[in-house]
């Protein structure tokens, strides 16, 4: 018997607490697979966010650090600079990265910190129960935007990958999703590339994953994935946003 597919060694044998169909689980395993394939599970250090992925360290099989809300890039900066040969990444939601942690991500990118940020953009605050995120779409409802976000009240949603791409220290930024297998394969490739460029010491690398949060969007899973492709991917274009030489 040969194995075609088994759970990656990058994950422990623990149950995930995520909601049914939540993209966090999928992205977790892609990271695990990429690091496993790089033979880096012994060296990797992951920085988890405050958000639904706050317990990621209970799932990943490598060492992990839970950062204060939004500060993962600062934590990763220190970890990578003191462990320059090891792969380091932050895993952050849109509240964590794009709202409270906006300064930290901008500065890590500016400094060209040699770690990878995996940005789970689900256009909502998952863990706290569906409040508006900086990436919530216009018209999308949230518990703090009960009538739907308006640009007059909260402005247009922020395109983080595009914004960070204005910084020279950010050498690679791609936006992906994991709603089906072809997209998932692309996502994995993007993660692989980000880690490879990190290890080459090129600079800051960034993979934004458009993700569904069926629970807080109040949708069935398939409906959520469709909504994602129709609405999120329309505003947040998928694909490579930036890919330049080492800074």
């Amino acid at each position, binding site marked *: 018997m040969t194995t075609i597919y088994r759970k990656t060694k990058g994950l422990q044998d623990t149950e995930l*607490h995520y*909601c*049914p169909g939540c993209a966090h689980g999928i992205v977790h395993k892609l990271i695990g697979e990429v690091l496993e394939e790089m033979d880096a599970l012994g060296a990797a250090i992951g920085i988890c966010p405050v958000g*639904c992925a706050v317990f990621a360290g209970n799932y990943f099989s490598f060492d992990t650090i839970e950062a204060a809300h939004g500060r993962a890039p600062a934590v990763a900066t220190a970890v990578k600079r003191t462990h320059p040969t090891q792969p380091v990444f932050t895993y952050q939601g849109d509240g964590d990265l794009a709202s409270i942690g906006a300064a930290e991500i901008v500065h890590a990118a500016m400094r060209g910190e040699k770690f990878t940020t995996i940005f789970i953009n689900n256009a909502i605050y*998952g*863990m706290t*129960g569906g409040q508006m995120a900086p990436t919530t779409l216009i018209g999308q409802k949230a518990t703090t935007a009960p009538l739907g976000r308006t640009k007059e009240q909260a402005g247009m949603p922020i395109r983080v990958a595009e914004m960070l791409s204005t910084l020279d220290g950010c050498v690679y930024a791609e936006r992906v999703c994991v709603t089906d297998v072809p997209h998932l394969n692309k996502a994995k490739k993007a993660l692989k590339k980000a880690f490879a460029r990190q290890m080459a010491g090129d600079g800051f690398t960034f993979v934004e994953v458009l993700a569904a949060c069926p*629970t*807080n969007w109040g949708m069935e899973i398939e409906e959520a994935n469709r909504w994602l492709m129709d609405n999120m991917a329309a505003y947040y274009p998928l694909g490579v946003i930036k890919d330049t030489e080492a800074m």
Partner: protein
Amino acid sequence: MKKEVILSGFGGQGVMSIGKNLVEAAVAEDLEASWVPSYGPEMRGGTANCTVIISDERIGAPLVEEPSEVVAMNRAALAKFESRVAPGGTVFVNSSIIPDKVTRVDVKAVYVPCDEIAVELGNAKVANMVMLGAYVAATGALKPETIETMIAEMFTGKKAKLVPLNLEALHRGLECGKSA
């Protein structure tokens, strides 16, 4: 008069909401009341429970160690709270989905086939109303009329058509409670 109830069940079973109904009815009867929720860490699914106190005096501790009654809407709830009921108290069991029996002999057990009755009435969602009726009748803590008035006021506008269904569920529950 002092009732200290723990109501417990799955997330969607409406235990939190009948807890609130009890408080509302108590207030309508000019009693003191408090409602304290407790959620598990899960976002979706998981168990939830609330503690309701109804009293004719100022309420001190809003949580209780030995409730006068426990309302168990699912198996986990019964397993968790049966042991906590005060001796002489009552355990309400949603017998439609809980196969177990109350094992303690120093408490009273009231079995209410909430889901069956609700399905019978055509809407599984009113299982909790059945239980509310049973509780009110069995304990005599509140007047059935108070709950009836409350239900009538609760559903207005488009939802007004839900009043008869809920009243029906309440009454079926009251019967179960009375005969208990």
